[in-house]
């Protein structure tokens, strides 16, 4: 920032060198969402700049590169070279939020894996639709684990490496327990005493001190 603040002062006397102006046009076209006209570019650049000339230089510089400086109507933008469009297929994915049923099912699998469908239903209190499980499998966030050695030998579900990558976890064991969720302020409601049979009961004590002072600041 300190460097930058020197520029406007200089520009009272003379415009920055053309090489600098080219850099400026490059940065502006890269960072703006909309194509910009020459007049708009000039308005953003220090006084005395010649965006048209800088654009011409920049356009030449990008000739044959992976992206190009393109004229769109009377405005300018940087766009992918047409022959490389095939690389952009991943940019066109539409992302949607996972449904509540799916995220709950996923959470239960993550916290209780390996877990059978009946167990998921018991924890959620509602039946789990086939589509929900299929969707999570398709996303490659869950997969089949070992069959449970109980009558009927039901299939179990576990989370995948893809799941860990997506959620930035090193292992599912690193997911915080209820107590920690609460300590981190992620959980507003507190269960009545005695109903806390979550997996990490062993951790009482660890955040004693935090709890003691929690509401202070």
């Amino acid at each position: 920032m300190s460097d930058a603040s020197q520029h406007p002062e200089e520009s009272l006397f003379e415009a920055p060198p053309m090489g600098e102006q080219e850099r400026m046009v490059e940065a502006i076209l890269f960072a703006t969402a909309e194509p910009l006209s020459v007049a708009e570019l000039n308005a953003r650049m220090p006084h005395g700049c010649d965006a048209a000339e800088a654009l011409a230089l920049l356009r030449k510089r990008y000739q044959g590169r992976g992206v190009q400086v393109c004229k769109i109507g009377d405005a300018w933008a940087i766009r992918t070279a047409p022959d490389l469009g095939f690389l952009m297929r991943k940019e066109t994915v539409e992302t949607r939020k996972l449904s509540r049923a799916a995220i709950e099912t996923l959470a239960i699998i993550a916290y209780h894996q390996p877990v059978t469908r009946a167990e998921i239903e018991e924890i959620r209190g509602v039946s789990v639709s086939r589509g929900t499980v299929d969707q999570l499998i398709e996303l490659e966030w869950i997969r089949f684990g070992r069959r449970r050695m109980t009558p009927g030998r039901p299939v179990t579900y576990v989370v995948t490496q893809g799941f860990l990558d997506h959620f930035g976890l090193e292992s599912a064991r690193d997911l915080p327990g209820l107590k920690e969720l609460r300590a981190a302020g992620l959980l507003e409601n507190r269960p009545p005493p005695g109903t806390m049979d979550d997996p990490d009961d062993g951790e009482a004590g660890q955040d004693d001190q935090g709890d003691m002072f929690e509401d202070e600041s």
Partner: protein
Amino acid sequence: MADRSDDIGDDDDFEVITVADRVAAEALIVDVDGFEGPLDLLLTLSRTQKVDLRRISVLKLAEQYLAFVDRAKQLRLELAADYLVMAAWLAFLKSRLLLPPDPADQGPSGEELAAHLAFQLERLQAMRDAAARLMGRDQLGRDFFARGTPSDVARVRRVTYTATLLDLMQAYARIRTRDEFRPFVMDRDKVFTMEQALERMRGLIGFAGDWAELTSYLPEGWESDPVRRRSATAATFAASLELAKQGQIELRQGETFAPIQIRRKPE
């Protein structure tokens, strides 16, 4: 807190020399809410020594802090419990630093405790400086920028579903706490009163000849739920102060935030 108008000495330790100093000292007191805990206050006080934190006089600092707490009392400002706990610890440290070491005592020496406090202050200051340097860096979206039109080629449309870690954890929390939304009963069962704590401790203290952690006096069934534990901890702590005032027990704490220990006062 208990009234204690007479037990901390006069203002001898606190030499207010100039008007500027006095103004500064009062600014500290008026601003007590602005401090983020006793360590922050100590760090601010340490600046008046105008020396490298490594060369700080912990004894002088302890005196400054005690004087601060004393003046806050004169101004009838309510100080949070952790400030008072720190004051008690610093008073203890001060006595350790001033008195010749007791050969029978096994605990850490005054110098060791002072050195650790100096280390804590230096480390906190270092983290403050590091935080300032970090925030002073060029930042994305302020000083440098990502691509303004990321999805610039719209061709194949494919829908993917996404969720964040927060969504996941909140979903889990929602399921596991759903039982709370059963018919609502006004619940006072999460509050442990000081009277209950006193009653309980009076019954137990007769057996407590040895130092034992205050937390071991928490009533059964109150440890797991944070709300209940907090209430029980506060009540038990208050009750132990009351018992100490009545001369029935002794309290000690090795260090700020260290567990508080109590025992029956030996006859």
